[in-house]
């Protein structure tokens, strides 16, 4: 089966491409580097020929409000347009848990706009909303560092390992289109500062984590439960410890 993975060279993309290739599928890893550009449309029509499944894992190169909205809308339109023309049977996109309730954050608005485009397109689809990845923790710590202290919110946090995400994506992609949204999350729920603290301890980082009690995420104010699934979600199998050990092995 021919599968095109948009953003096939990214964190999740490479893993998904790998998983699907292992299963013997003809997988196109699409990214501007491989000559397929969803913004300009370059290579898109050719890549879509005979394609059954499209997995959209692309992320905006810029997070600036206007740019991110433009990215997801333009890319979404081009991609879906090419899919309709090519008769693609399943479109799978990765979104974010709580994107709908964090509409004060421009990135989330753009993600919802992307979801809406998919729902309206008429292409059978599955939208997977995922929680944050365990791989983000280091970054979260860094952006909240002030001197030797890391000031973090106490919002609920249920990070998932990228490997789990990749296998969920691959499985849902090969399954029947849900024509709706599913949510995936990590197996454990923390307060945000707790897990960062744990991570820093594990890596022997000297920085001290301070809970600021503010419900915020990347500068936007959110509710305490915004980042975790509200209802039933499919949980990954890799918990923090397992994930951490796999990380350190690689280092």
């Amino acid at each position, binding site marked *: 089966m021919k599968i095109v993975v948009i953003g*096939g060279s990214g964190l999740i993309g490479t893993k998904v491409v790998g998983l699907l290739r292992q299963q013997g599928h003809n997988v196109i890893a699409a*990214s501007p580097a491989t*000559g397929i550009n969803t913004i300009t*449309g370059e290579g*898109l029509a050719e890549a879509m020929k005979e394609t059954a499944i499209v997995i959209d894992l692309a992320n905006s190169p810029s997070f600036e409000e206007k740019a991110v909205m433009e990215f997801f809308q333009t890319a979404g*339109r081009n991609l879906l347009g090419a899919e309709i*023309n090519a008769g693609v049977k399943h479109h799978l996109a990765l979104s974010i848990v709580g994107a709908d309730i964090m509409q004060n954050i421009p990135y989330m608005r753009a993600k919802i706009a992307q979801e809406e485009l998919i729902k309206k397109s008429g292409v059978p689809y599955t939208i997977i909303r995922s929680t944050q990845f365990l791989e983000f923790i280091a970054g979260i710590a860094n952006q909240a560092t002030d001197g030797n202290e890391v000031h973090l919110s106490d919002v609920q946090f249920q990070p998932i390992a990228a490997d789990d995400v990749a296998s969920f994506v691959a499985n849902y992609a090969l399954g029947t289109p849900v024509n709706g949204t599913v949510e995936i999350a990590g197996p454990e729920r923390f307060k945000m500062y707790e897990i960062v603290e744990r991570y820093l301890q594990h890596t022997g980082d000297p920085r001290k984590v301070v809970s600021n009690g503010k419900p915020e995420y990347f500068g936007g104010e959110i509710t305490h439960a915004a980042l975790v699934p509200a209802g039933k979600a499919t949980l990954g199998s890799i918990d923090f410890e397992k994930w951490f050990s796999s990380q350190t092995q690689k280092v």
Partner: protein
Amino acid sequence: MKNAGTLQQSVELYKKEKQVLLALGNDLTGVRDKNDLMILFKQRIKGLFHITHSIVMMIDNKDATYVPFLLDNDDSPIKSHKQYQEMVHAHFALNEPFIQAVLQAGEPVSFVLEEVMDLPQSPAFLRVNFEVGAKEVLVTKLMKEGRPMGFIQTYTDIPGGFSEEFRSIMHGIAPQLSSAVSNIIKNEEILKKEKEKSFLLDFSCDIAAVRTKKELGLAVRRAMNKLNPQSGYVIRRINEDNTTLTAYVFDLGARTGDQKVISVLLNSKFPINDGLQDRVLNSPIPLLFNIEREIQRGIKAPYLQHWKTVGFKNFVGIRLRNGETNLGILLLDIEEINIQLFQGICAQISIALANIMANEQIGRKQDEQAFLLQFSNDITRVRTKMDLQEAIATVLESTMHTQFAMIRLIDEDGFHMSPFLYNDRLFGKATADFGKMAATRITIEEIYTSKVLASEDGLVFNIEEELNSGNAYAKLWKATGLKNVYGLPLRMGNKNIGTIWLLANRLSQLLLKGICAQISVAVANIQANEKLLSYKKQLEVENDYLKEQIKTIYDFSEIVGSGEEMQKVYRLMSLVADSNTTVLVLGETGTGKELIARAIHGASPRKDKLMVKVNCAALPANLIESELFGHERGAFTGALDRRIGKFELANNSSLFLDEIGELPLEAQAKLLRVIQEREVERLGGTQTIKVDVRLIAATNRHLEEEVKAGRFRADLYFRLNVFPIALPPLRDRAEDIEPLTQFFVQKYSRTTGRNIRKVAPKVFQQLRSYTWPGNVRELEHLIERSILLSTDGILDDVFIPRQNVEDKLENAFSINRSLAELEREYIIQLLKRCVGKVSGAGSAAEILQIPGNTLHSKIKKLGISKSDYFS
């Protein structure tokens, strides 16, 4: 020795390797074309080593495969293999042991084909090569920026044919080969780009010259010929309604279609949202469509079916836009997408399209101006509403696809607005509603009107939107099928005079302004004209009324004459006028009985209603009853309709029965009954009708004698003779002759246009001396005749009919008299009439045609004294 030999060998090897490397290095720097590389490679290598053929394959990262890139075109033995073409276009997975072994190794790896070709995941080309005689393959990685970019495979038909030397050389030249391949790739890209650029440049030059649709078609065709001469295209333009697209320029390319179908499609308006055109218009990138698949997906667009029958399979759709405005779409019958090229083409076509449209717009503007001029001409001829409706209908409807709805004008009170003109054909079945709505008087504060009046250049109402907002008119508007309603103020100078309502899909500002100005002028003209007409009419009516008044209103002053006899009459009239008493006016013919009757009526409380006059002498005996009392339908032969009698007509007024003496006896009986009962019964009717009528009867007969003779009913006579007024004959009121004469002279001077300044005294004398058997009427006609005969502005002669007078006088005086008596009597009469004048002009002597002296002696002889004729 052995060492020396080996050394020698290795020196040789290096030398050879160096030679090859140097030669190849020199060659490779010059390589720009992909086939050159393989030829050069083979030439250099083949001279030194035995190989059968070689091939360069490139890695495709996007799907983790590798594909043939440079082929040995000259004498590759596998060219004859039936699977060759398949191999050339195949993708081979990287994810299998054979190629993985190559990727892992740091140097060229050789395989014995027989050993690897049948392993489960091995690529098919191994067996193909084996089948044409190759025994071993040497695969060398080509690296770029530290990552593998491809492989060069060299085949030999000799088992173990790849020497160490060869392997070493391959290893050594791999970097140069890599850079040569990279160069080729880059070069190809550059060439392609250059080709595209020059193509676009040419196209741009072509397009720059485009001014018309035809030229655009030719320019696009030329460009298409360079891409693919066989392929067709169509440019569709968004129509003015902004909801449909229509073919603008098209070319079927090498294909042919049914002309009928094509012409139908060419003239069709395809809705934007047909599931295909909207996709093209919404997509920033060119989209590749498969016609079969679109049909399967249920896209019903008729052109798809046509394309399918014509033989198109795939097409590319690209939107044409100028800035942010979509102009249309370009559909190309082409399989591959070259985004840059297409976007270049489309940008050019868009510009051309915009130019053409701008040109067309200028043309349209000119047309509009010409049209306005024509309209202006038409409008200047407009004098009536009908003319205006005509002008508007021909101009707006026939030439501009605009429907005229209505014009409302502000009333003189400046607040209300009345419909002036409206098009009742406009709304079909809803006409009645529209008529009702249009006819209602609104005020300038009506919501839409006030908005329109307040606007500078009028307003556009979208019918669909108005329908949603609950506008009462919108339903009617909707019935026309047009999109917009234009409400425009009509102004003269700065003053609002009304509103005009038009229905259209689109109208240009220029036209709207122009039309409004023209119609304003026209409306103002019509209004002025109508005002003029209405004033004229009013004046005419007033004039008629005044004339009628002059004719019908008689107060006593209208009756000329103030002599003693008339004074008596006036006194009687004023006594009786106020009452309801029946009056009987008696007098000789021509004494003015009707005048008196009218004067009595005019002085009575009934004067506001018309006096009804019946001339009893003028009616046939058998009709007089129906005339007086009316008849029901079918009362007698010829009574086709019900008829109201004069009695009924004169209810609450006066009935003047002229010539009552001539009334037949039967009618007299009925008349008597009516006078007694004060109610009438129509002929053939059963119902009696109460009437309140004042009777004024007149006759010149001696009714008493008529009664005696049995021709007039006595009882009727007594009924009528309640208040008789006897009018004196003119001969008894000689003193009134002069004022009467003056009156008639004035009257006829006016009507005949002759200015009679003076009446000679002689004339009065003559008039007084006449007996006037026709009384005032005779005098009137005599004066009329005399005026007509006068020539010099002085009435100095009247033409009294002598003969007649003498006859009458003879008749009056010739019975049982002696000649002397007769003579005496006659002379006294004459002298009386001539006011005692015996001789001279207007004297008795003149009338008698005897000398004055003779008359004097006759007077003496007959003993006539002055007291005889001055009594």
